[in-house]
């Protein structure tokens, strides 16, 4: 679909909606990888060390326990220029001894979510407008003071990007994002894919 538009147009749209990351005019495609690893000390050192040594472009990384106590799941959003580069990321990660399985969930039916918390200045003048935006995005207010509110929103990365952009008009005090996580749709878990 991209080839129907001019490069500048695509870049503009891409920048506006953050469909892709843009680096010096090159369009990078994002993929989300589900990486199952042994729950052993040093695993995160191995994974993050590899990413930095091979100069891979990582948008976000998050890790947590799973249904199996001996397995940790690392969610990595990687941005690459070419399919070959994507293969390199997957093959190099697979080489790590403690990596059990990698699935590219962007290439399978999947659900992707990210959680953000945004602390924003909300005085008498701006509070109503901010609440309006919160409602439109179906976000939640989780903390209120006389001067600030903390907004919580869960959704696809694109939605998180969008609320951050819209709230950019107001005084954002801080943002904490978890990075994206994903699950496959249907009954087959990643470990059996």
């Amino acid at each position, binding site marked *: 679909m991209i080839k129907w538009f001019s490069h500048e147009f695509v870049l503009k749209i891409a920048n506006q909606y953050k469909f892709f990351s843009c680096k010096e005019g090159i369009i990078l495609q994002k993929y989300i990888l589900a990486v199952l*690893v*042994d729950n052993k*000390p*040093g695993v995160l*050192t*191995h994974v993050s*060390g*590899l990413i930095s*040594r091979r100069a891979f472009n990582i948008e976000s990384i998050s890790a947590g326990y799973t249904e199996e106590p001996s397995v940790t799941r690392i969610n990595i959003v990687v941005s690459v220029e070419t399919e*070959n580069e994507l*293969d*390199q990321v997957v*093959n*190099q990660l*697979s*080489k*790590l*001894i*403690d*990596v*059990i*399985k990698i699935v590219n969930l962007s290439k399978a039916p999947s659900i992707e979510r990210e959680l953000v918390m945004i602390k924003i200045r909300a005085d008498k003048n701006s509070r109503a407008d901010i609440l309006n935006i919160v409602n439109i995005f179906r976000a939640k207010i989780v903390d209120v003071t006389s001067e600030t509110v903390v907004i919580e929103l869960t959704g696809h990365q694109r939605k998180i990007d969008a609320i951050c952009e819209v709230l950019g008009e107001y005084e954002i005090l801080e943002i904490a994002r978890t990075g994206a996580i994903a699950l496959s749709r249907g009954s087959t878990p990643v470990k059996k894919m």
Partner: protein
Amino acid sequence: MNMNGAQAVLECLKSEGVDLLFGYPGGVVLRLYDEIYKMNFPHILTGHEQGAVHAADGYARATGKVGVVIATSGPGAANLITGIATANMDSIPLVCITGQVASPAIGKDSFQEVDVFGITTPITKHNYLVKSVEDIPRIFKEAFYIARTGRPGPVAIDIAADVFNSQIDFEYPRTVELRGYKVSSDGDSKEIKAVVEAIENSKRPLIFFGGGVTSSGTSNDIRKIIERLGIPSTCTLMGIGCVDSSTEGFLGFAGMHGSYGANMAIQNCDLLLCIGMRFSDRVTGRVAEFAPKAKIVHFEIDPAEVNKNVVVDMKVMGDLKWSLPILRSKLESSGIDFQKRFSPWLKESIEISRVHPFSYKIEGVSIKPGALIRKISDLSDENTIIATDVGQHQMWAAQFFSAHNPRQFITSGGLGTMGFGLPAAMGAKLAQPKKKVILITGDGSIMMNIQELATIADHDIDLKIVVVHNFILGMVGQWQRLFYNHHYSQSILKGKRDFVKIAEAMGIRGIRLETIADLESQLPDALNSDGSILIDCIVPEEENVLPMVPGGKRLDQMVLS
């Protein structure tokens, strides 16, 4: 059986068949060294930890067995780093044992503490930090398995000091359970069938093999395939010896300082069979124009190597031990007369290679490095191991030494580590005591681990050390001569060092050869004498290694003179 952690480590090593350790003691490994003393475990004390790790590496390269090195925490472990990285780049199996400060002291910037796990992560196949004695047997079993299987590589085990003193009911596991490590041996034989078809449809196929042939022990299969097809062949620096250099159509090694014939054949072939090699930048020249006319086939055990540097047309994944015998039998059962079909191409490749063979000019009485190496080669046989350091002499050795067998030519390829040669030669000699080991080094490189002269003297290790002495850091000087207006910035060695006296002071014999006549009259006796000897060969300063593919150029854009 009840024992302490230090005894358990040595029991693990015994169970793995380790017969020799290289190392250097220190504070946190005192318990381990005490058990080495009590058990009388064979151990070579080197002059520096870097010497120990290169020696273990040389031992591994000469035999294919896993080399084992021990160092203490902090500076001891840090001194191993260059050696571990060297082994990692060339896929050499090592197990590197380091002591760490006691568990409660970790992270407190304790005396002689360094984060060995963190430092070794990017330069090992795998690494461990052991904080509990119960983990010792499992981790050692895994470490040796990981180091030697699949694509081999170094494994580092950092052990907290208190672990050596803790008690364990020792039992060595029989099997390894690693969910994330599958040794890929057998691949898809359809991929090999496709390669056979590609060979049948090609007119100008070329075999290009690398160090993977050595580590998989498939040199004989390669030889038989070349014989069956009657096609030219070339190799990487790491592949030297896998095919006897006298084989018809063997064009010498390829790449930056490789042969004219090999580089031209790569650029002109229509099918390039790349076997157990990884398309290093030293071997491809300008990567976008590497083998432009060829369909490139990659036989490889490591999926991450495929399409990493060069995008290939076909691949055969799996251990060469699996793929090459199948390829060989498929070719042998084919009804096609390959030799007849490919003979014009074989003849053409040989003729082109004869236009610019590796050569040197005799000028006056001075010893030309090429003449020196050729003389060493003439005085050697298939039971001679050559070890080199890094620089001009290394390239001359690769060019002018005729290797016959794998594991005969020991050199630091990927990392290009100066100072590798002397300790690696020492390790090779200890691994292969019946073989003659000749070290070819330079006046720059030998200084980087010259303390190991004392080690070979102490242990009566019989090495023939040839110093190609040109009073300059030769390869640096060559680049400065060719690309930096003869600005010999920090590359001139003033010439006041006397290697003969250094050798004698360290406890081995030394002689100096200054003319061709000296070379003819003294080299044979020196190489055939008993015991170690250092042969200081004075050679001209302004000698270039040629041919040369300058950085960023195509393989056929060689500087020839």
